[in-house]
């Protein structure tokens, strides 16, 4: 389905995750964050950049990985993206939600 962020129409799945990363822009991410109640700061963007880089390298994302990334520790990650930080930050980064096998 289509949804509009920052005045741009993008394709998202049922849960609101982008299905085509090429449609992601910083403005789209910023607007998505706002709708999640998050005001983006430099630290938020540092995390988003890290997530996107891991996704490009096909590295599955976990809370531990982020805690050891040197970008943020896990407590800070929760403070930046409250209520399921990995789920929320993945959405803002325009990458798929971390999943189990079924």
């Amino acid at each position, binding site marked *: 389905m289509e949804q509009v962020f920052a005045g741009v129409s993008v394709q998202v799945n049922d849960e609101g995750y982008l299905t085509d990363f090429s449609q992601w822009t910083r403005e789209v991410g910023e607007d998505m964050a706002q709708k999640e109640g998050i005001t983006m700061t430099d630290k938020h963007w540092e995390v988003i950049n890290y997530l996107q880089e891991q996704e490009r390298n096909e590295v599955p994302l976990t809370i531990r990985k982020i805690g050891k990334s040197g970008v943020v520790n896990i407590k800070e990650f929760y403070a930046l993206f409250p209520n399921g930080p990995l789920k929320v930050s993945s959405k803002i980064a325009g990458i798929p*939600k971390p999943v*189990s096998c*079924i």
Partner: protein
Amino acid sequence: MKQLLILGAGTSGTMMSNHLRKTLPKKDWQITVVDHQENHYYQPGFLFLPFDIYKTSQLKKSIKKFIPKGVNLIQEKVELIDKDQDQVSLKNGEKLKYDILIIATGTDIAPREIEGMLGDHWQKSVFDFYTFDGARNLRNKLRKWDGGKLVVHISEMPIKCPVAPLEFAFLADSYFKNKKMRDKVDITFVTPVSGAFTKPKASKELNYLLEQKNIKIVPDFNIEKVDADNNKIVDYGGMEVEYDLLVTVPTNMGDDVIERSGFGDELNFVPTDKATLQTKVKDNIFAIGDATNIPASKAGSVAHFEAEILTENIQRYINGQELKQEFDGHANCFVETGDGKAILIDFNYTHEPTTGHYPFPNFGPLSLLKESHMNHLGKLAFRWIYWNMLITGKHIPFVSATMDTDGKDLEPEQEITH
């Protein structure tokens, strides 16, 4: 004489030793397997042991029994892999030179990684079922447990056999129903991902199971610590879940030797090409099964499919040919749902589990992503196949290493990529 060295005699290492002894000329290649353990365990059986469905004697046999003639087995711990010298050091000081190395050291639980998980309560009120001892101790506990809050918990992903914890919850429901004490047991499933099922088709087909079995779900729970004094687990966001009996899957990590040798990721898994199974450590080092960091399930079926492709790629490597980019992440798992039923799932890197028939299109006899008694019988029959065919490298008829799309209800536009 050239040397091919395999580290680990679990599912993957044993299969590779059998495949390669058949394909590599005996006059040119000596094959050596190193593993310090005495026993080879049928790991899928650890799920059934706590519920008294299997006996301990059905789950272990001597490692030696499955290493073929003409392969040298050394039962000693590995100290270090020296990739620059193409050499492995053993704990007893012996050094083994190799031309080709296959790392098949698997994964193990690391309860030390979670604050408060180990302590006096470990194996008393906090159990794992991913080890032989853990599953057996849990069986003894369940035999005399009089009920309360049962919490089935996954610490963090990735874990071996990702559906096993959910199967445990389903089997627990059956077990307590049969003991006529289901009303005394409250079952909660706690997971770091966003639900028991996260793939759209599985969620649609299977969500009814949780309601039917009265299993509560706590999703997005990233454990910070076990507070054993107060019988609760606490997540980084401050969420708390109380338990009387905690059945947890601790953090899964690769072997310490990977860390000592300086090339693992943060969980000691070996960086490996997901299509060829050659490691990113060095061209003459390959990895298979749970030891790799590839984005496939850590499961015996995956190791089985990988073994066929890795056998071919080792031959290609020896002949100086380009490696086949063939492994597609194929996994095939029976998922026990309790009450004598199971579902079967078949998927790979790009296709999520879906409905259909397996292995023959339009016929089956096994149905995909639907509960049936036939699938449960399939799961039980698999123990025989494992001991007699799978690890000794015999081909299992009609089951191919790469995923087959025939017989599946696929909608190509819904293919997923990640």
